[in-house]
């Protein structure tokens, strides 16, 4: 029983990380209706920036927030420079551009930082908190950070005028533009926010999987599974999906199929959701006029 609880809790912790990356995917999907294949590599690159800052002598939290700021700015620049020119192009063109971005980020990270696997510090104490032995402080901290981020995003979209403008721009670009919202900038802002959220996911996962240019491939696959399961247009769904696939992955890995087939679980979840219920559990079904 003890190991079962421990497996569930550590599943929740990795689930929290999947949830953050899934949130980033939802963010970009909300702002642009696109599936961002480069999201994992963006998060990886942000984590390397954090690593450089920490190496340069910055305290952890200062490096953390500086990385968020840099990632936010980088997201906006990428949207303006790389994605703007192909706005509204065919799905194939978009997928190709995202894949190009993925490959560039991956190889540039390998070029600058080499492919050596490095440890990444955790901001949380190494002793388990609250006198229990089920879950490490880092896992607990990662869950807390994810939930705090979800709340912040919810509050941003629900209570701020900027959040409202972004929702409007995503839902109905033409009307939003007529109402005086700069739709292009809202898209860029969505990218910036997604990159910052992804940076958090990267910094939270790096102490567990260690830092290397290919660290995010598996995480990204699970984040896709999470986002699709929860409904790719619903932040709460994405977070639920993240926790769900995290626990599912851990329990299946511990009791049913072993550690070697974890990625296959994600693949099966993705294909199953897309085939059985493409809108996800909490998403709205897309209706299209033909």
């Amino acid at each position, binding site marked *: 029983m003890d190991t079962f609880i421990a497996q569930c809790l550590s599943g929740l912790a990795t689930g929290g990380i999947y949830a953050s990356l899934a949130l980033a995917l939802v963010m970009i999907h909300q702002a642009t209706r696109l599936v961002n294949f480069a999201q994992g590599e963006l998060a990886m690159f942000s984590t390397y920036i954090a690593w450089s800052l920490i190496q340069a002598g910055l305290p952890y939290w200062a490096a953390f927030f500086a990385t968020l700021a840099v990632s936010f700015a980088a997201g906006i620049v990428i949207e303006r420079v790389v994605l703007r020119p192909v706005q509204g192009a065919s799905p194939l063109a978009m997928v190709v551009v995202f894949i190009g971005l993925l490959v560039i980020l991956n190889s540039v990270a390998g070029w600058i930082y080499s492919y050596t696997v490095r440890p990444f510090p955790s901001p949380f104490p190494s002793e388990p908190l609250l006198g229990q032995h089920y879950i490490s402080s880092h896992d607990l901290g990662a869950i807390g950070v994810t939930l705090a981020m979800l709340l912040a995003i919810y509050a941003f979209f629900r209570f701020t005028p900027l959040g409202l403008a972004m929702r409007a721009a995503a839902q109905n670009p033409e009307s939003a533009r007529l109402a005086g919202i700069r739709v292009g900038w809202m898209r860029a802002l969505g990218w910036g926010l997604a990159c910052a959220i992804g940076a958090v996911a990267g910094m939270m996962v790096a102490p567990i999987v260690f830092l290397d240019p290919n660290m995010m491939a598996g995480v990204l*696959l699970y984040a896709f*599974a999470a986002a699709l399961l929860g409904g790719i247009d619903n932040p709460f769904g994405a977070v639920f999906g993240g926790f769900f696939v995290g626990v599912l992955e851990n329990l299946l890995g511990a009791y049913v199929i072993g550690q070697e087939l974890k990625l*296959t679980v994600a693949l099966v979840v993705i294909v199953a959701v897309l085939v059985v219920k493409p809108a996800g559990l909490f998403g709205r079904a897309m209706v299209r006029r033909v």
Partner: protein
Amino acid sequence: MAAGNLPGSALPPWKWAALAVLLALLCALPFVLSNFSVFQLTLVMAYAIVLLGLNMLTGYNGQISLGHGAFYAIGAYAAAILMDHYGVPYWMTLPVAAAVCLVAGFLFGLPALRLEGPYLALATFGLAVALPQLLKHKALEKWTGGVQGITILKPDPPFGLPINADQWLYFFALAVAIVMFALGRNLLAGRIGRAMVAIRDNPIAAEAMGIDIALYKSLTFGVSAMFTGIGGALGAIAVQFVAPDSFNVFLSIAFLVGIVVGGLSTLQGAIYGALFIQFVPNVADRISRAAPWAIYGIMVILFMYLAPGGVAGFVQRISRSWRRRT
């Protein structure tokens, strides 16, 4: 992308002559190049077959696949397992690899029917990411050799021909590539090819014309996987080695880069793309281990912006303006 990219029904005589000259050149090449260059060209032919298959699916039929590395791996493993475990001669492995991949592709194409654009790309991306783990799995280790992979022997030239193994394999790959390109061309030039393009350009109109979309789409997936599997089997025989980690997601990405750079929805694009993914990394590797991929990434985005027709588009434009002048 206009339907005008479809190959015509009959070749004019001057094109036959050009092809004959090209064939003569290709046959002379292995006698002037080093064995290693001959080996590289053999791989180019394997890749060209793969890219032709992927182009049918993604270029002509409009279904985006980021997972063709998986079908390449299935073809490669089919050939390696047959040769290593069952002592099957290398040339017999190709039809088997083709059949296995045809079925695998058709089956994966069935759920893929419900997926469009980026979502199909996502599902196939998942396939590519998950595949190395599957190949390493213990249940399959007896056949796949697990992480170690399988080493196979290079076939000797038959009939006591006075050429070495690399040269023989080159001619073998050349013959297979010619057959596959002839098949692919005829498939695309006919009724089926037009149906594929019609589905890509306007599915509703295509359906109204009486095209069974579900059948054609899953069939295209199967045929595309079949071409890719044959390429994979050829590649495995040439490299003499298969291992799970050589079939990671970047292989699938390289194939996508190949068709975009070579030229979507063109036959010759597959050849330019194969040359690109074979030789550009070799040159760029001298700068840094990461350089080939950086170049891939930049090239693929630039081609998307500036020349969506790829190299084949350039060539067509140049040859057209040249013919107008004469």
